């Protein structure tokens, strides 16, 4: 009773507030949101500056060679980041190649095809996958995934694709490919969830128009839904890529942690994030610590660069399709 009364009072006061919009509140809201938005920008700049500052010694000592040399020797204090940059890019690329088709297909099934009773359980399951801590995934990777990969998929890949340089040489288990697969599992839920939201926001009018033209279910999904949502789906993939580039713990546990550049995906690799996680706690000399800071700076730069490239790619894709539509 009392609760209902107080709610009524609140409702009334809300109405009076609505009736007399205060200019101050409006301005305050505008400034507040602006400050929040700026805070993000400032934070990014501060992080960049801090990384730069923390690695100034290493930057001065190694200069540009830091990015182009492959030796990582804490004893001789020679540091080069190339194998880590390579490992980060390649493992993320493998992850995207696996996760993107799977996620978008899953999202399309969930929004376009799946019967209602199956949707909710599936969605919850996928979201649960995102909740698994990465260290748990890593342990699962060591004890379940790697032995299985070494037993079945790796020999098959070697047999059928062994003529390419990517699937040759000995198969230890911990490898670039295993790292890519574990990242794929980790970014799958993100890309799927975002893609699902995007596909759901495609107006039903689109689908109805396609069906009206006599399109089959597949044609309607392809032309009216996926193509319409292309830009949004691309955004979902970029978010997944951002996560993939920075993924640390699970990758470290299965990638083999060897700073080398090998064409074969069966060979162990190393990523930027992994080397920081591995070596930061026990690094005692200044130049060693600074080199690890510089690795952080490089990861920061790689992430920004890859995102910029992706934005650029997105713009080219959307403008060309727009001109095609006009033509």
């Amino acid at each position, binding site marked *: 009773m009392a609760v209902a009364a107080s709610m009524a009072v609140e409702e009334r006061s809300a109405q009076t507030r609505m009736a007399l919009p205060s200019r101050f509140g409006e301005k305050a809201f505008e400034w507040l949101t602006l400050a929040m938005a700026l805070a993000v920008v400032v934070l990014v700049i501060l992080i960049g500056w801090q990384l730069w500052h923390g690695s100034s010694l290493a930057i001065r000592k190694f200069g540009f060679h830091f990015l182009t040399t492959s*030796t*990582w*020797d*804490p*004893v*001789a204090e020679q540091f080069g980041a190339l194998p880590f940059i390579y490992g980060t890019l390649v493992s993320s690329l493998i992850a995207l190649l696996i996760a993107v088709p799977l996620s978008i297909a899953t999202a399309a099934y969930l929004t376009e095809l799946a019967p209602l009773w199956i949707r909710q359980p599936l969605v919850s399951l996928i979201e649960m996958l995102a909740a698994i801590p990465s260290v748990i995934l*890593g*342990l699962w990777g*060591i*004890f379940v995934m*790697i*032995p299985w990969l070494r037993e079945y998929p790796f020999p098959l890949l070697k047999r059928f694709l062994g003529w390419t340089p990517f699937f040759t040489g*000995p198969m*230890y*288990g*911990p490898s670039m490919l295993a790292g890519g697969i574990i990242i794929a599992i980790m970014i799958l839920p993100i890309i799927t969830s975002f893609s699902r939201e995007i596909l759901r926001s495609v107006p039903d009018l689109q689908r109805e128009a396609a069906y009206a033209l006599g399109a089959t279910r597949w044609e309607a999904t392809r032309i009216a839904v996926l193509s319409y949502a292309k830009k949004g789906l691309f955004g979902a993939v970029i978010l997944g890529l951002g996560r993939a580039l920075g993924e640390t713990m699970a990758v*470290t*546990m299965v990638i*083999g*942690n*060897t*700073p080398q550049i090998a064409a074969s995906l069966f060979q*162990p690799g*190393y990523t930027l994030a*992994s080397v920081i*996680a*591995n*070596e*930061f*706690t*026990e*690094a*005692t*000399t200044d130049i060693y*610590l600074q080199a690890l800071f510089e690795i952080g700076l490089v990861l920061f730069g790689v992430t920004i660069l890859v995102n910029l490239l992706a934005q650029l790619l997105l713009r080219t894709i959307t403008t060309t399709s727009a001109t095609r539509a006009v033509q």
Partner: protein
Amino acid sequence: MTKLQKPKILGLVLALGLSASASAQMMINGAGATFPYPIYSRWFDEYAKVDPSVRFNYQSIGSGGGQKQILAQTVDFGASDGPMSDDNLAKAPGKIFHIPTVAGADVVAYNLAGNPALKLDADTIAGIFLGKITKWNDPKITALNAGVNLPDREIIVVHRSDGSGTTYIWTDYLSKISPEWKRKVGTNTSVNWPTGIGGKGNEGVAGQIKQTPGALGYVELIYAIQNKMPYAEVRNSAGTFVKPSLESITAAMATAQIPDDFRFSITNAPGADSYPICGATWLLVYQQQKDPTKGKKLVEFLKWALTKGEDMAKQLDYAPLPAELRDRVLKRVDEIKT
């Protein structure tokens, strides 16, 4: 009902908060090595019963962090699995004492069908880790293991990928026994490995070994004991094959040359009973304590740890210091000024 209970709970929370602040304890902060963390936390628990007026807060952030924090004087004591370098000691605002507490060993663990007992020596271990011995049935290995049927299989070397005191002991040993290793690789908490794959932490290395037939790597003795992994006997500098055990580690500390600043290495120690791949862990404290009351409490604790505490070491699979070394360290603790 629930509404009525709320004030009660609030009152309880308030009361608890008050009682906690009423019995304010002295807090002694430390940070550093992860290897001795289980025994240190046991010591702190037990010591709380001996002297309830002090509480210890130890963060196992790694030896590098421990050295940095003691240099920056943000903690009352540091902890490290390797002695501090001359460069780092020169940065300290005062004299830092190295107080050895317990020791551990690295064992050579492997995955071979049937878990045969293996014997290895310095040459074979260095050869395997330099990538020169690549097969299990290499003549150098079979010569040491007469009667063991070793397969014609590639040896998959597994090492730690994270910087660690375990790697420090391992590479310190290899540098002592192999001039080539010393020249090409050297000693550190992480190095530029000539061969092998890296696993994160003892659990990572152990996991890779268990899951990969033909794998060989090094893990802490404690870890191998607790996970029942097979590990090799290693020939020491006196020429005898020694099984890694708490006794053979303590034996190595008893025979090793230990300098007065206690920045010692006990790898490849002389003596027929010494296991050759082991190392100690240290607490780092300033000789001149800034806070006299805190300093006094810290000294009391160190004395307790080096006597009563040492007796607990074996229960937790750590090797205690030999009696003679213990007496020398206790004398050093007496030199701490408060």
